[in-house]
């Protein structure tokens, strides 16, 4: 009762949850053009994930696994369905998620091992796999109610059915590490626990925490929707954010009746929702805004897509960030892999594999 009254008061005064504010890009999150200026290695049909074994870079493109060799991509494996997650397994081979409903090992010592459920929990929207040094797999399943391709539906229906699993290829065992997450999208083992991106809560959280007193949250109040996490050379991780939070979307997420009608009546491409790319048609929704430049007020509408990769240190602090800004095209960065001093990124917005020199980026950003 009291909570209802307080919520009503907040809505009336625009406070608390109804304040509808978004964290600002400043400090180490200050924007730059490094993703936009990254080298475009290749343009593909439906790139989804990128992985490396430390020497070679592999890309999941539709149903194919491609190997990057001399700046060219060669098919090394083909599956029956769309690959939604890819990881390289120590000793050779891949761990693949197919259509989000099945995890399979292809090649290597555990070739043919597959999982479609852990106990009673059936896989539904597997979107990321990470491999530990001893060969265990950490698998994130974004939603148990919506398929992988319907992530927008999950956000707009305030989904919180994400899960994290641990799979052991050696014996085929599996266990559930966490459930009821707000779209789990990416995991990585760090400091004895598993860091998991919870996209709709804009933070990275620790699950399976080691008993060393580390707090449950690694980093929070991110200005974007975090996705896959991969280890970085020299400690810490790379965290990709596939879209940016905007006040308009935050507002729509609090307007339940409007949202339900939007889901029922409007095609998903035209929803007021984050997107992997934008500006394709005038039918897309726009947020009215303005900029004052040289004393003149100019109309301006922030688009719904953005490109962002964040470098976190071992404590979860942001060291620096890489951006493709509103005026760029390399948006919707959802996967990263570091190999041979370069960071390879999948920009799903324009279906590109990008590469950028990490040392040069650090020189530019850190001096």
């Amino acid at each position, binding site marked *: 009762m009291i909570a209802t009254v307080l919520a009503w008061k907040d809505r009336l005064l*625009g406070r608390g949850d109804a304040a509808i504010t978004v*964290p600002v890009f400043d*400090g180490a999150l200050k924007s730059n053009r490094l993703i936009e200026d990254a080298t475009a290695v290749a343009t593909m049909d439906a790139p989804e994930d990128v992985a490396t074994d430390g020497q070679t870079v592999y890309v999941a493109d539709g149903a194919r696994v491609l190997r990057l060799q001399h700046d060219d991509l060669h098919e090394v494996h083909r599956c029956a369905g769309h690959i939604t997650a890819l990881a390289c397994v120590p000793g050779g081979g891949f761990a693949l998620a197919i259509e989000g409903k099945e995890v399979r090992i292809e090649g290597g010592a555990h070739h043919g091992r597959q999982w479609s459920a852990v106990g009673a929990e059936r896989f539904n929207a597997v979107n990321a796999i990470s491999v530990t040094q001893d060969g265990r797999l950490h698998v994130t399943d974004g939603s148990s109610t919506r398929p992988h391709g319907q992530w927008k539906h999950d956000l707009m229906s305030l989904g919180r059915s994400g899960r994290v699993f641990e799979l052991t290829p050696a014996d085929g065992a599996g266990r559930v590490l966490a459930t009821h997450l707000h779209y789990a999208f990416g995991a990585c083992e760090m400091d004895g626990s598993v860091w998991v991106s919870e996209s709709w809560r804009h933070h990275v959280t620790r699950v399976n925490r080691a008993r060393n007193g580390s707090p449950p949250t690694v980093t929070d109040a991110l200005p974007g929707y975090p996705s896959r996490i991969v280890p970085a050379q020299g400690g810490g991780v790379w965290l990709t954010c596939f879209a940016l939070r905007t*006040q308009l979307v935050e507002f729509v997420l609090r307007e339940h009746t409007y949202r339900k009608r939007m889901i029922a009546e409007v095609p998903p491409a035209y929803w007021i929702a984050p997107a992997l790319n934008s500006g394709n048609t005038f039918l897309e929704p726009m947020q009215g805004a303005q900029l004052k430049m*040289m004393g003149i007020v100019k109309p301006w509408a922030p688009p719904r897509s953005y490109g962002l990769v964040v470098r976190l240190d071992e404590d979860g602090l942001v060291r620096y960030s890489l951006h493709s800004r509103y005026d760029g095209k390399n948006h919707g960065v959802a996967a990263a892999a570091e190999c041979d001093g370069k960071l390879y990124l999948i920009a799903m917005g324009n279906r590109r594999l990008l590469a950028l020199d990490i040392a040069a980026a650090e020189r530019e950003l850190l001096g």
Partner: protein
Amino acid sequence: MTSTPALEMRKATKKYVGVPAIEDVDFALLPGEIHSIVGENGAGKSTLTKIMAGVVQLDSGQMLIDGQEVRPLTPNDAQKLGVAMVFQETTLVPTMTVAQNLFLGQEKFFNRLRGIYIAAQQFLQSLQFDVDPTAQVSLLGAAKKQMVEIARAVLHKAKIIIFDEPTASLTPEEKKYFFDLVYSLKARGVSVIFISHALEEALQVSDRITVLRDGRHVVTDEASQFDRARIVQAMVGRDLSQTLYGQRKKQIRPQGKRVLSVQNLRMAAMVKNNSLSVFAGQVTGVFGLVGSGRTETFKVVAGVIKRDFMHGGEVLLHGRPVRYFVPASGVRDGIAYVTEDRKVEGFFETKSIADNIYLGLLAKLRGKRPLFRRSESAEVGEHWIKRLNVRAIGKDVKAIELSGGNQQKVVIAKALVQEPDLIIFDEPTRGVDVGAISEIHAIINRLADEGKAVVVISSYLPEVMAISDRILVQRMGKVVEEYSPAEATEEKIMYAAIH
């Protein structure tokens, strides 16, 4: 235009407590001319124009009107000489109506209110000002108050009108009316002095522009000979190594955890949708011109003033939303605000150094110290006097008896005794002697090295560049740019700060 200036200043010098606000400034305003005076904060624009308007007097030099030397001692004297000044903060009587304010000082022995209202209505309409003459001034918005102020100057038949930041509170439509009014004043032969941080407006409206820097005249030229870049260069073109603050910062501290996150903050007309973060272990410098809303933003953070009651945005301290109604709540949460106005808000001038510092501690320990413990006060006072090197005969010396620099150290000690996580220094070296500046900077740097989140609000570019690990530039109520000290130049910062 004739060759005899309507108003001329020759070698104008004015000092405050021995420090020159303007020095040997030559200035000439031609009849029927619109003349803009631009310069950064503290350049001497206000002092120069206040002398013209009789608010303050020259220490040396001459002021001439129509070639005759004059020395107005009061604003009334200046008004009789035909000089009127329209201040940024209006000087209207809030409890009177618009019409009463217009005719204030010109009343007849018997006044018919209806007659005043009709005359005021006709006059305001002739200026195309949409203001109700019967409205009480306290109920008007900033723009309308400004209009009444302008109308009053025109009504008093001033030959020279000085506008101090006249467009800061006007909407685009109101600005257009204002500029039309300025042009019509010019057509009537009135000379106009226009002080503005809005360079585009200065370039658009002026016949000539004068640039002041550090109290000295830099250049006067036709407006057509200027562009934005030339003005900015003239405003800031100083050698950094020659300033009190030395070279720009070379070692930049890495950022720690986000201590403060301000999101879409609003506070009346001063802070507009402002967002920024402050990180532990860094000095965050905040630069902006007067009226950019820097002080107001951080006063809201510290609970000194309140944000908008409805849709005021969010302030998150260590990720937790906070909204303070009194500063004491902020103090208990680890926020210390070192005020820019130490004499009014910083200390009790008749109390001793030790008592002042101890009062800072009591603010933090509300309820845990029901009684003032004199021994503890002495102990705390001695500790901080030694730690901050406050130069005084003893801890029992009254704060008012100290120099400006040592007073500032007492205010800082009063804040630091609260062991804050976030310390906001607002103009920490204003009115402080040269020796104390470096000591205060050392204190600020030490705090950042200890892992505290430190904010330094400063109007002085060399100070911001010398001390900050990151520089935020605020303009028109919000942060518009962030620079690292490595990339920042005075020109870049000033370019972002003016509108």
